[in-house]
């Protein structure tokens, strides 16, 4: 992974936005089985709005714009949690024009803490928090170099390993043991986003990401 700059962020967001248009129906269906069926809309609208925002060069302010965009259009749980994560990252990166890849695990940790505070959630409750945590650990282990395959693997494994457990938080909690066997929609969304990001990373040089590999 290269360093994070505002143009890199813009490119990544744009790529996720395009991918989200495509995977929105899958997410709506997953959320329909365990909730209110709006997660695909939430994710595609949020990234769509963020992709349309003009990002300043300051990485922190660029993340702030993305957070605001998310908040404007998608105020469901997931939208608010993503906005919370983006806001935490914005605070941590404010005043810098580039953030090295080595900062990423720390930023993820900050985002995770903010999301846990916002949603009063804990790890192990079968939510997006578990996904973020797993990816953070994977990046920590992997260290430098192309971390995306490990990130994708961690995100995918989280979905699969939690499938056999019941949801303990959010709307899906209501289904109790009925949620066993089903993928948590938020974990699935995270996985699809990370996969989209991996695809985005490959032609990174051409889209403004400073490739550090």
């Amino acid at each position, binding site marked *: 992974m290269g360093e994070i700059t505002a143009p890199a962020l813009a490119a990544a967001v744009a790529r996720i936005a395009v991918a989200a248009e495509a995977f929105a129906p899958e997410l709506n269906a997953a959320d329909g089985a365990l909730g*209110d*069926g*709006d997660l695909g*809309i939430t994710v595609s609208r949020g990234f769509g709005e963020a992709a349309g925002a003009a990002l300043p060069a300051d990485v922190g302010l660029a993340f702030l714009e993305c957070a605001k965009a998310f*908040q*404007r259009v998608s*105020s*469901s*749980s997931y*939208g*608010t*949690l993503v906005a*919370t994560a983006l806001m935490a990252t914005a605070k941590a990166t404010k005043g810098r024009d580039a953030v090295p890849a080595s900062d990423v695990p720390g930023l993820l940790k900050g985002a995770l803490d903010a999301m846990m505070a*916002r*949603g*009063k959630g804990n790890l192990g409750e079968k939510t997006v928090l578990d996904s973020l945590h797993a990816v953070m650990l994977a990046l920590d282990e992997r260290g430098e170099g192309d971390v995306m395959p490990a990130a994708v693997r961690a995100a995918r494994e989280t979905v699969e390993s939690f499938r056999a457990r019941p949801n303990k*938080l*959010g*709307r899906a*909690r*209501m*289904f109790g043991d*009925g949620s066993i066997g089903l993928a948590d929609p938020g974990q699935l969304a995270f996985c699809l986003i990370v996969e989209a990001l991996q695809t985005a990373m490959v032609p990174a040089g051409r889209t403004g990401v400073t490739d550090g590999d």
Partner: protein
Amino acid sequence: MKKILNRPVDYVDEMLDGLCAAHPDIYAQPSPRVITRAGGATAGKVGLVTGGGSGHLPVFTGYVGRGLLDATAIGDVFASPSAEQMAEAMRRADGGAGVLRLYGNYGGDVMNFDMAGEMLEMEDIASTTVVLADDVASAAPEERAKRRGVAGMIYAFKIAGARAEERASLDEVTTTAQKAADACRSIGMALSPCIVPQAGRPTFELGEDEMEMGMGIHGEPGIWRDKTKPADAITDEMMDRLLADTPLGRDDRVSILVNSLGATPLEELYIMFRRAKARLDDLGVAITMPLVGRYATSMEMTGATMTICRLDGELERLLRAPANCAYWTVT
């Protein structure tokens, strides 16, 4: 389960336009999806704000009015409004005495109202929170904080609204609102779903002869799903579950709300009320100011909720205090 609408994406905004145009003496929409009293905030009074998804009229917007709420933020159907809209509603409700957020316990709403509260902190507007969690079907008593907020919220709106109208302080209004919230227990049952305009499909499916006990107002799963039962049997089970959660006896005074989720007609609510009253009469519990009607709906959903609000002297005085909105007038 058929709807009268134009483009689904315009459902909420056209509804709010119509609401404000029909009742300009009561409601105003100073910024998109933020509804305030026609006259705005009342100087020196604690502002009461609620918010949540559309599709529950009269909840939430309908309860803005004298002796009730000061402002609401309204989202898409069954979806939270944004934290920014909530913050705007709070700004518009602030008369200099601070703002109480009073809303149902749903993940999105809680997170966004918390964010809105943090925004207001930075603007030096004092604010407090009371989360409404009255649905006994949604979590065990040990996990009461996880319960959903349903129709019982209108007691909290009414009682807190009356307390604020007395020019009580933010702390006092918050204390009373929490007391009202703690005094309410609700349970719902559903017979048929509604259609969320932008989804275009029913929120759930139930067989032609089936009902679901304990279902939530967005179709959240309930306690059991089986063949429909007679009205008295349904009412008995609802009362049993409420009374198990809040035992009542001689000397207790309550208000009860028999509420339609939308399509269930008044006729059937009265059949349920009749039985609920017989049950409370048997226990020697006195009913005062009962409410029967469509107070908190899910558009055209078929079904009903039952709420018991246990009253003490203060709560009863405030429940009976004058109030006026397009759907509820107390004189």
